């Protein structure tokens, strides 16, 4: 077990972080907004943690072993607040656009941040920021920070889907105009959904900066936008479980394929495909899932059946109560 954990520590932490990033894309999508801005906020969060830990908490060249966890928590707080504030500004401007135009504007936002971080001095230019201090001796220990964040954000999204604000998101997704005429302010709720997603991405960025040890302009780029979108599309875009499952599966998939390729007796070409053609398989999988599971692997349909029986029971109880009153 210990051996397994130390071998796959990096992968497990990566899966958990991917699941949270997928949630960060799912939140605006709940309100019908296809935003690909998550990697941008992820990058911002990462730079905040990198700069705070290497330049503010520690003087140049100074080291503390291990780096205190409460510093990381503070960096996450700052990353969340700044990502959220930035999201309100970007959201108010960008969310006037709809559908594919919003997606394009958010890609532009990610690109602007990338160019900025490549050229600014305090982000370390093309080299970036390296030797970000480590709080743990082993990668697997990052789960102590990452898993609670996943659990909290999953619970948050689960509850959100069941209360007024979440219903307002979904009403906007279903029919923005009709939502407006029943008193839901679409701009407010779209910006709220976008901001919640941005905060999550910023928090993950702050963890990742330590986890990856270096941070530069290659973190959180357009490729990442597409990867996160794939997490949500493959996992499912109609319930909070979808992005979590999608993020974990797609992050683990390349490693699983590598392991399968190692099985003895496979034809050489096939083993080679599994090992080196991961991206081909990845692509084929995305195409197949979107064709055969248009709502993703985790569809609310099989969750719905239970809700339906609960609701009809409640109705029967209510009918019985009112019948009693009449007698």
């Amino acid at each position, binding site marked *: 077990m210990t051996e397994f954990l130390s071998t796959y520590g990096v992968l497990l932490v990566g899966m958990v972080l991917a699941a949270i990033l997928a949630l960060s894309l799912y939140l605006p999508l709940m309100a019908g907004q296809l935003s690909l801005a998550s990697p941008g906020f992820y990058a911002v969060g990462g730079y905040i943690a990198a700069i705070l830990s290497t330049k503010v908490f520690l003087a140049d060249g100074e080291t503390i072993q291990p780096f205190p966890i409460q510093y990381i928590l503070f960096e996450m707080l700052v990353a969340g607040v700044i990502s959220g504030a930035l999201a309100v500004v970007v959201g108010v401007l960008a969310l006037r656009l709809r559908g594919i135009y919003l997606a394009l504007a958010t890609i532009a936002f990610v690109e602007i941040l990338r160019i900025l971080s490549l050229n600014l001095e305090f982000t370390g230019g093309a080299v970036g920021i390296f030797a970000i201090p480590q709080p743990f001796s082993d990668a697997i220990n990052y789960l102590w920070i990452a898993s609670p964040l996943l659990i909290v954000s999953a619970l948050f999204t689960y*509850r959100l889907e069941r*209360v*007024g604000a979440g*219903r307002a998101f*979904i009403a906007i997704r279903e029919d923005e105009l*009709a*939502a407006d*005429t029943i*008193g839901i302010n679409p701009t407010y709720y779209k910006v709220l959904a976008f901001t919640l997603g941005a905060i999550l991405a910023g928090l993950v960025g702050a963890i990742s900066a330590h986890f990856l040890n270096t941070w530069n302009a290659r973190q959180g780029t357009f490729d990442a936008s597409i990867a996160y979108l794939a997490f949500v599309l493959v996992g499912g875009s109609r319930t909070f479980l979808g992005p979590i499952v999608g993020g974990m599966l797609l992050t683990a998939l390349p490693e699983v394929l590598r392991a399968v390729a190692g099985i003895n007796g496979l034809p050489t070409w096939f083993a080679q495909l599994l090992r080196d053609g991961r991206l081909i398989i990845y692509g084929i999988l995305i195409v197949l899932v979107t064709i055969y599971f248009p709502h993703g692997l985790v569809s609310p349909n099989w969750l719905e059946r239970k809700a339906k029986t609960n*609701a009809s029971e409640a109705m029967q109880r209510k009918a019985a109560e009112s019948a009693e009153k009449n007698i």
Partner: protein
Amino acid sequence: MNNSSPLLEVKSVTRRFGGVVAVNNVSFEVKAREIFGLIGPNGAGKTTLFNVMTGLTPPTSGTTIYASKDITRLAPNQIARLGIARTFQNIRLFGNLSTLQNVLTARHIHSHTSALSAVLGLPTAIAEEKINRDKAYDILQLVGLAQYAAERARNLSYGDQRRLEIARALALEPKLLLLDEPAAGMNANEKHGLSDFIKQLCDQFNLTVLVIEHHVPLVMGLCNRIAVLDFGELIALGDPLHVQNDPAVIEAYLGDETALAKTRRPASATR
């Protein structure tokens, strides 16, 4: 508000779409507790007028006053909060949500606890959610859709979807209800039932109703007063009997050979 002042005033409202004048200088008042009919041939500008009143389409000129407040430039959600609810000619439900959730969503303006306290499941939020849920069930029972509470809205029959739209509008607890062709696609029997249903709602909820309808007998039997639009202009206003015998109305509905010869506007103006 006293009874003499009207609940809704439409003051010389004009709306142009490019070169087309959809609504042309229309003025009328709707009194509180009135069932007011808005009729006219296809493309007369009735729905555009509804869109102006609910803030979906700002007027090119003119004002709309509701309960002595100028609502001309308000957003649809602000107007909804003031107590104006509407249904749509082409049904606009939240198709993937259940019947109950559709009505529950419209309780939004009556929810005062914050999103955060709801997510955290604080007692006040839970209590409020329960009140809203009960209210939504009651409304579903009233319109006769309670047995479909858990069904997705898009799976309901056409007539039931229309009733669900009315239920969703009622969940706002409006003072003024705008119904855009509520009888479309209903048979004669259902239309008769609808007329009684609207009257019942009006009494039960102290509603003022503004209804767009093509079916003339329904309007005549239901409405206290009727406004007739033709090519965006108000051509008649008054009680049903008066309007029914108005030569301009007869001309608009049945056509007039001499009028045809000197067509006031090209047919394309009716969009």
